[in-house]
């Protein structure tokens, strides 16, 4: 028993280490090119440097994403492997670095150094383009999430689109083109079948996914990430998964139909969340729906022929997509960066503020205090913390699903989507619209 606890402790330690690396690096870099460097430029060259300062600031989201995506993938792959090891009573990778913390870095390096093989008869242009097309959306898809994750921090406000939700949905539909392209271009029948499956799957699961997201948007009344997250401020009861505040409006004297409607709305929203999780799993090809690369049937599906850096890119994009989908769910359903209990968030913020004051407040001159303040904003830190907890919890849940469930067959998959999920999504859409008015 002790050794099991020990293993869980190791996993927690790894997670902590990697989160520090990821967010430390991203935050440090974005702060230095978004705040520090512009400040230096402005103080040096005055008005003429304004253009460069603003250009640098505008570049912050890009750099942040470019840093975040590979680092995050490194952690996610490692976490998945360690978690799967935990679930399957093994130990997982524990050789490279402390407790195997840098196993994925080593793996990535290995993949980069491997020979790239182009199969004979492959369409070289398409074959090369496919990983790019697969990967690009996951990079640009992360961007609007940055604003939501950081609590609309000034540095990331430029990427907070008023149509953020729609943007992500549109962008997340692109990778399937890469899959079909790669599958067709690699001149391998397994790849081709995988690609065709992927296309069919993506097209069918996009519909219930869209419908479920639209329902949430209706509930929230906006397509803006930051606003959706802000609407769920307060407590657990305000989260969209429980009807977006329908339960909090109830008082002692509410009429019975209002109470019933609120409870029903909450139930509908929980179903909606389940629907979203299922469709998201299908959208990012996670286990019960990992038909495009069904290993036991199609060798490795659409990426059978890929090797080296191209395969690495597929891999990177797949995990980034998983992260996007999880964060999306955290923002849409699980209250974004807000704590589940009312007091908790304030406690977090004031605690952090006290800590900062204790460390830097007393002994620093004004300039340094300003820097620190702009570096660590307690509200932002708390926001980032909660949203990260939620999205990684969802990622871990995906690992649990992967450890348990077998794979559906393609016709069952389509059946399930068109005959079960789409009607359910439509019913929920109508139900939520009506119930929302009733409450």
């Amino acid at each position, binding site marked *: 028993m002790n050794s099991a606890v020990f293993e869980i402790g190791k996993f927690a330690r790894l997670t902590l280490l990697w989160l520090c690396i990821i967010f430390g690096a991203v935050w440090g870099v974005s702060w230095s090119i978004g705040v520090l460097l512009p400040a230096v430029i402005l103080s040096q060259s005055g008005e003429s440097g304004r253009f460069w300062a*603003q250009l640098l600031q505008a570049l912050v989201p890009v750099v942040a994403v470019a840093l975040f995506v590979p680092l995050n993938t490194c952690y996610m792959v490692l976490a998945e492997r360690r978690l799967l090891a935990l679930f399957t009573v093994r130990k997982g990778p524990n050789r490279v670095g402390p407790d195997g913390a840098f196993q994925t870095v080593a793996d990535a390096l290995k993949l980069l150094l491997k020979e790239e093989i182009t199969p004979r008869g492959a369409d070289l*242009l398409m074959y090369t383009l496919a990983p790019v097309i697969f990967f690009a959306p996951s990079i640009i898809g992360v961007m609007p999430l940055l604003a939501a994750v950081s609590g609309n921090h000034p540095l990331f406000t430029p990427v907070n689109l008023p*149509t953020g939700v729609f943007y992500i949905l*549109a962008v997340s*539909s*692109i990778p399937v083109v890469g899959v079909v392209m790669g599958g067709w271009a690699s001149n391998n029948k397994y790849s081709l079948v995988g690609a*065709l499956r992927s*296309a069919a799957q993506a097209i069918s699961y996009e519909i219930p996914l869209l419908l479920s997201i639209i329902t949430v948007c209706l509930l929230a009344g906006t397509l803006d990430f930051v606003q959706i997250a802000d609407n769920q401020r307060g407590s657990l009861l305000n989260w969209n998964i429980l009807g977006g505040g329908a339960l909090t409006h109830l008082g002692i004297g509410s009429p019975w139909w209002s109470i019933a409607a609120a409870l029903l709305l909450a139930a509908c929203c929980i179903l909606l969340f389940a629907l979203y999780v299922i469709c998201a799993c299908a959208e990012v090809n996670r286990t019960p729906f990992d038909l495009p690369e069904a290993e036991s049937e199609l060798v490795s599906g659409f990426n059978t022929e890929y090797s080296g850096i191209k395969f690495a890119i597929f891999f990177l994009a797949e995990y980034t997509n998983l992260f996007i989908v999880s964060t999306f769910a955290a923002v849409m359903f699980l209250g974004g960066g807000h704590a589940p209990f009312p007091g908790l968030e304030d406690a977090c913020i004031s605690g952090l503020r006290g800590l900062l004051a204790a460390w830097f407040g007393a002994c620093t001159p004004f300039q340094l205090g300003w820097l620190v303040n702009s570096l660590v904003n307690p509200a932002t830190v708390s926001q980032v913390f909660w949203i990260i907890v939620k999205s990684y919890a969802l990622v871990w849940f995906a690992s649990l699903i992967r450890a348990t469930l077998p794979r559906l067959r393609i016709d069952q998959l389509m059946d399930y989507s068109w005959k079960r999920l789409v009607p359910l999504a439509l019913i929920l859409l109508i139900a939520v619209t009506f119930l929302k008015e009733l409450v």
Partner: protein
Amino acid sequence: MESLNLLTALAHVNVEQGFFYVLAAIAIPLAYGVVFDRNVIRSGFLLIGVFATIAGLFFLLQAQFLGLSQILIYGVGITLVIVIALMLTNARQETGMNPALPANVGLASFVSVLVFTTIYLSLRSAEDWPLKNESSLSLPPNIEMIGKHLMTYYALPFEFASILLLAALVGAVMLSKAEPASLANAGDEAEQAVDGTDRV
């Protein structure tokens, strides 16, 4: 897109124009590729590229919703279906044939020139394209605007479009459900002509 705005404001140069030419420079070769590539599936993929660049043009015009819909529906959904349909047909037979008979070429070029001229003339006739100045469209939350217009001013075309789509769906179902006997026979002959090739 807002960051793009920011850059525009900063640079004091017409970035939009630059981007327009870049996108056009990508789109036109891709479009030529769609027409001239001998590999049908490949030209299908190129079509996706064309749609994507056109979506980029929409973004330049501050029509976010249109651009995103373009990607979502045309770029991915419809074209992918086309590509898959092409994959299921016998591509080798297509590439084996020689469509470039002089008569075909003449007819095709005649039709294309005709179509191009028509479109060009119709575009020319409108002297001022009031895209940038129409404030209602250039406002950032233009989805709301589009929704309102669709439900009020353009309600009738919207309904027509939906009926058309419905009809298309029903037609597709009917087509795949039962083929007339004559068509089925024609299909038989076509199959006999095709060798049993295993390469798609």
